[in-house]
């Protein structure tokens, strides 16, 4: 059995467990975990957008919260101000984040490493403060809250986010589709061009790869993924606020990615799941729980530089005898 088939089987098992989670958690009488799980899926999606840039193209972004915020406000404004339905509002959120990433990307992709990281933070701070100031549009400090329109309303068939299980399946469906899209992307010619740019941009350009263009494409796709996560988060909380646009949110996405395994498909989601579980379990017991998060992250970086998923793949390769 190859490492690939082991990982495929495990991914399938995970998917089955995720689909079956609502009745399973209900049966175990721990329903409240369903809401936590929904949140994990959304943050895992945000982390995957940081991973697309860092793990695949080699650009460390501390600004993914900006596009998350555009997705969030897009939905909130779409529903609250324009009276849009759920799907058009999501479309507006994603379009807004794609548009913002397309513009910011024109500047950002000309830089690399810390310069790139800094410019992404700068963009996100500008819009964070703008969101606080533009009270008539964004609600300022108070944020924007709204009543979520139904997911589906076909006469007798009416699905709403009010039901926790329906909301969870709705989020799961979209997150799974977003990860499937990323898997497809990684296996494509564009995915290989991403890898080439990450591994050696000068070499890539000498082979005919337009490095800036490839980076820009990755930046826009990552912005769209972050925007999708933000749109889901707004629907999940029926709320949009500037706090989730702050650069610390971007930083969390990077920590989840590094911990879970930068460059792997599911690593960022695994990292997000682990750290959110740590937070849920420990924050009530001990207020200094971020110390544990920090220690855990340092331990992983030192002992498994490729993160949990990277370490797993290494172990798998060894066990399977290669």
């Amino acid at each position, binding site marked *: 059995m190859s490492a690939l088939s082991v990982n495929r089987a495990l991914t399938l098992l995970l998917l089955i467990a995720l689909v079956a989670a609502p009745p399973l958690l209900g049966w175990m009488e721990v329903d409240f975990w369903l809401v936590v799980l929904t949140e994990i899926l959304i943050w895992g999606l945000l982390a995957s957008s940081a991973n697309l840039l860092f793990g695949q193209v080699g650009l460390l972004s501390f600004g993914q919260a900006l596009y998350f915020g555009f997705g969030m406000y897009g939905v909130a404004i779409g529903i609250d101000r324009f009276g849009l339905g759920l799907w058009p509002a999501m479309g507006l959120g994603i379009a807004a984040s794609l548009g913002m990433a397309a513009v910011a990307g024109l500047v950002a992709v000309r830089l690399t490493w810390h310069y790139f990281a800094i410019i992404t933070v700068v963009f996100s701070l500008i819009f964070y403060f703008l969101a606080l100031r533009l009270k008539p549009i964004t609600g300022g400090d108070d944020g924007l809250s709204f009543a979520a329109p139904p997911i589906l309303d076909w006469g007798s068939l009416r699905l709403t986010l009010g039901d926790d299980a329906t909301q969870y399946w709705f989020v799961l469906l979209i997150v799974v589709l977003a990860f499937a899209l990323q898997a497809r992307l990684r*296996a494509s*010619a564009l995915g290989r061009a991403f890898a080439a740019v990450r591994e050696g941009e000068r070499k890539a350009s000498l*082979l005919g790869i337009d490095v800036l263009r490839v980076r820009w494409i990755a930046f826009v796709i990552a912005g769209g993924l972050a925007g999708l996560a933000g749109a889901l988060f707004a629907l999940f909380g029926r709320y949009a606020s500037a706090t989730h646009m702050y650069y610390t949110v971007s930083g969390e996405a990077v920590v989840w990615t590094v911990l879970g395994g930068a460059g792997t498909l599911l690593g960022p989601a695994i990292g997000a799941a682990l750290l959110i579980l740590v937070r849920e379990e420990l924050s009530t017991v001990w207020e200094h729980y971020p110390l544990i998060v920090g220690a855990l992250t340092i331990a992983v970086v030192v002992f498994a530089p490729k993160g949990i998923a990277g370490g797993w793949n290494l172990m798998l390769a060894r066990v399977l005898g290669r």
Partner: protein
Amino acid sequence: MSVLELEGVSRQFGGLRAVDGVTLSIGSGITALIGPNGAGKTTLFNLMSGLLPVSSGRIRFRGQDITKLPAHRRAKLGMARTLQIKQVFAGLTVLENTWIAARQRHRPLDPFRPAANDRATRAAAEAALETMGLEAMAGRQAGSLAYGDIALLEIAMALATQPALLLLDEPVCGMSPSETERTVARIRTLSATTDVVIVEHDMDVVFGLADRVVVLAEGRVLADGPPAVIAREPAVREAYLGEDEEAA
């Protein structure tokens, strides 16, 4: 017919003219570019391949003015180049390295079709590995190869782009004598289909391979002609003797 034409090409770094008004017309076969350290050989390669912009002068490739084109556009037009400090995509497999090179001619940024289904590109990538004798290593991670094999892989990647002109920057540097011999034979074979410019310090390699030798010194063309003539040129011997005296 000349593939690459340089017309008064110069490059200035602060007060230093690293390349100083070079006019060259590179034709068919293997052209060797030699000269003492600091003569401007690698800088000239950087100007030809577009990694550096020229300070003045014009460059034409296959009749087209490419003076202002960035490196990737020149590569698309059929110019390939290896680097003095060998560089491959270390984290990818050997085959993926040449696959990426070969794919640049056909929808290189297709986000949908699985790369594994692209048989034509795979065949081209495998052919390039075969030309350099690397087919047995196709599945290995490029970063795990020995230095000599990395140098060969770099040439294979350049070949996979199906270039009309191949610029090789010290291709046998760091290779053992037997590796050097095999590499020289391979370069000779591929020069039948592709024009080659080679920068090399190993004079046995230069005089064994080249149809024409261009000597650079202090950024200028000092001599230009068939190897037999260049070997007897007093100015050339002086330039090299000068270097030897300094080194001693």
